[in-house]
């Protein structure tokens, strides 16, 4: 497999950034940001993968009998998911207020400042 899983993560990131740059709808842009975030899950899990490894949970596995994947990056992926969810929630809240005050969710139409 070589470096292809890492490159896949980078590809997902660039696709998401393309969506962000060309977006005409803030909800769509927030979706793109979530895709960009998921590229980091891919990268983390690719870094932690061990060939033939199973989940690092020893409730039904005798320690030492099978290789396990890296639990540290899995814990980081959990943090990543939580942060992604909170960012999405706050951005959606901001979008609701924008829609109410400016009557548009197109970021390209949001040019004027309004107090």
């Amino acid at each position, binding site marked *: 497999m070589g470096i292809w899983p890492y490159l896949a993560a980078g590809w997902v990131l660039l696709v998401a950034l393309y969506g962000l740059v*060309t977006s005409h709808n803030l909800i769509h842009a927030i979706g793109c940001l979530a895709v960009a975030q998921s590229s980091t899950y891919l990268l983390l899990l690719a870094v932690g993968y061990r060939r033939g490894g199973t989940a690092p949970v020893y409730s039904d596995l005798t320690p030492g009998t099978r290789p396990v994947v890296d639990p*540290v990056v899995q814990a980081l992926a959990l943090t990543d998911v939580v942060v992604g969810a909170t960012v999405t929630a706050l951005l959606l809240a901001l979008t609701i207020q924008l829609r109410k005050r400016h009557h548009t969710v197109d970021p390209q139409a949001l040019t004027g400042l309004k107090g």
Partner: protein
Amino acid sequence: MTARTRLIMFLAAAAVIAGFFAAACSRLPPFGTPDHPYAARAVAAALAHRTANTVASVNFDIRAFDTLGEESILFGTVLGATLLLRRARDERHRRAEAERVMPTTRLFGTLLLPVTLVVGVYIVAHGQLSPGGGFQGGVVLATALHLAYVAADYRALKRLRPLTFLDVADSLAAASFTLVGLAGLVAGGAFLENVLPLGTFNQITSGGTVPVLNAAVGIEVASGLIALLAHFLDQAVELTDPDQHETGGD
């Protein structure tokens, strides 16, 4: 800036990112390498603390301080969303209407709500043994309550959702994480040190502070998520826009 210029600038930047990213990846350890020094140490540390789920051990024991930060982010988001989605002066409050639901949907919700609640508590309580924990179980718990909205209407959800109580529970759970940390400081000499008895490996009481912190996070995530969704749902269901003529479509 026109859309075309922006796209050209993006493509130039993307080419640079792609080049450097690929160069960086080529120096990473090969995919699936058997050599994971941190994994070996984390597994040894988890087994030494009799925590069967290594990921839970990393999150709530080895990296517990980071999880405190993560939990604070969640707490801050609930506060921020509460502030952003408060009712503005020019908005009117409209009482949610009772709605008709198909009897099968109602039956589905009535049966599934208690089952989902039990599953949520199970996932929180067994975080130190099997995949799951406070974050995952908390989300399941919050989802369970919203089955009332799917199977009945918004009024039923509001009756099931004591928001004041949940706000207090959210704050107390967030604070108790820090208190467990301070207890570690007093009893063991380090913040968030695992000072509780470690118990028997693969039993629900194993892992020392891991199940305690999991419970705190589970309560915080569940109550925080319900409060967060409450503000979004209030916006959609109960608030009318200041000027209806432009936004009457939704």
